[in-house]
């Protein structure tokens, strides 16, 4: 009896010691302490920061909507960038993801397509936007191209995974009728993945909407430019108005894409 209570109270009987995991935790703790020391966080700096932070937040409110025309213009451009980039990204990523699907294509085709998608996905949209600003000049075009590249990376990956999970029986059935390649894709593959594609596309539209408000920081059009300019002019109550508007737009966008997904049961 005493032995049973002992083993019940003794945690090591329930969870035996796992030394490799303990060492991993210790190593992580040491690394974490080292990384923290890199931040140069001193109590003096922290309290000075709190003071600044308090003043900063006091200056944010109340938000100033006087220049709503400027705000609306930036917002409109952001929306346009997000919509066009999503459409372009969708149109380009469909064929690329078909090429990258390992169950439909030979290896020498899937490899380059996958490499392209990894390249597009590896860089943050804002970094791609910098390069496009240098290449095609300031304005919405750079933003559209940058977000198209980013969409190609993410949509391509999601689409490829969806295509690789399809049932090959239907593909085989269509093929057995002697259908040409395009018909196999249109009637054997796409119907199986259509509803998932709608889900992914609406997710990408949400994500592009968020990023389209940021690419303006590097001059690629949209409300980000207005936001950054207001920040640099210490025009904090306008900054607050812009941020509140962005949040509202993103929430409205999420509600709309959610409704659209519901219609298609994706």
């Amino acid at each position, binding site marked *: 009896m005493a032995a049973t209570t002992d083993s019940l109270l003794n945690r090591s009987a329930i969870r035996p010691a796992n030394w490799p995991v303990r060492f991993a935790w210790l190593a992580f703790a040491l*690394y*974490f302490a080292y*990384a*923290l020391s*890199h*931040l*140069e*966080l001193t109590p003096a*700096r922290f309290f000075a*920061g709190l003071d*600044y*932070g308090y003043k*900063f937040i006091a200056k944010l409110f109340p938000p100033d909507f006087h220049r709503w025309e400027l705000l609306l213009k930036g917002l*409109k*451009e952001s*929306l*346009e*960038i997000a*919509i*066009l980039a999503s*459409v372009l990204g969708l149109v380009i990523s469909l064929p690329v993801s078909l090429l990258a699907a390992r169950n439909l294509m030979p290896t020498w085709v899937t490899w380059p397509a996958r490499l392209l998608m*990894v*390249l597009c996905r*590896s*860089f*943050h949209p*804002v*970094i791609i936007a*910098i*390069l496009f600003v*240098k*290449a*095609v*000049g300031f*304005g*919405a*075009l750079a933003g*559209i*191209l940058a977000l198209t590249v980013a969409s190609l990376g993410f949509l391509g990956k999601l689409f490829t995974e969806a295509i690789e999970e399809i049932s090959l029986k239907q593909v085989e059935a269509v093929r057995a009728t002697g259908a040409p390649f395009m018909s196999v894709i249109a009637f054997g593959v796409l119907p199986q993945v259509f509803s998932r594609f709608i889900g992914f596309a609406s997710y990408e539209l949400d994500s592009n909407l*968020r*990023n389209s*408000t*940021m690419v303006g*920081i*590097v001059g690629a*059009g949209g409300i980000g430019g207005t*936001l*950054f300019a207001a*920040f640099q002019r210490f025009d904090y109550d306008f900054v607050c108005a812009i*941020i509140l508007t*962005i*949040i509202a737009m*993103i*929430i409205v966008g999420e509600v709309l894409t959610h409704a*659209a997904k519901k*219609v*298609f049961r994706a």
Partner: protein
Amino acid sequence: MSAAAAAVVEREWKRYSTGERLARFMVYVTIVAAIVLSIRTVEVIPDFILDAPEQIADLLKRMWPPDFASYPKEIHAALLDSLHIATVGTVFGVMMALPFGFLAARNVTPWPWLNWAARLVLIATRSVNTLVFALFFVAVFGPGALAGTLAIAFHSIGFVGRLFSEALETTSPGPIEALRAAGAPVASVISFGYWPQVVPAFWSLVLFRWDINVRESIVLGLVGAGGVGMALDNALNLFQWTRVAMVLLAILGVVIAAEVAVTYIRKKII
């Protein structure tokens, strides 16, 4: 008799009800209208589009070959800084996200007004971009890695908290009821009832967020919040394209290494 037969013949099979088809039609119309409106009103100079391939080719030509000599001097330390920012930011973000995750889960916190308050925090932190947080913290704490770390941490709250609360809401109520019936205090219900059920989801979303944060930490330098983005910004401002290419190559290496590491760790622990 004949009337009934006629009714049977006339009944046509339809995949969707009229309402469903109308809803679908509305969605299509909205999408097409949005695209057409965007194309007609967006301010893009057509010459720039035609010129774009040439300009991009020119840019790539100027980037080649990458300036490998600059890596040990300026890029390596900044790159490590970015990784530190991502890791510490993720840890702080997760620590702040957990309480909100518990508060937002309807089965853990039975008060709807608290659920909604927590959810509001999660939505707000998710909607404010990392770069906006970075601008804010640079204004508060001055430029440097601290601002970047806090920006990463605050933006992570929404993502981690939301997915964590969703994981909590799918837990099975059996073990929790058993613990409550045995008279276990709240802390024990959480650590022995909920926690073991959400551990795999928790680690997988922490790893996923870290992977995202590695990418995000790289741009933070553009607004002065530390990391390799500052090296990129310097090289861009000086038009040193070969050095820009080197920074981009280094970023590519780190991002791919992070993805490989996450895949490996996920396989090991989940």
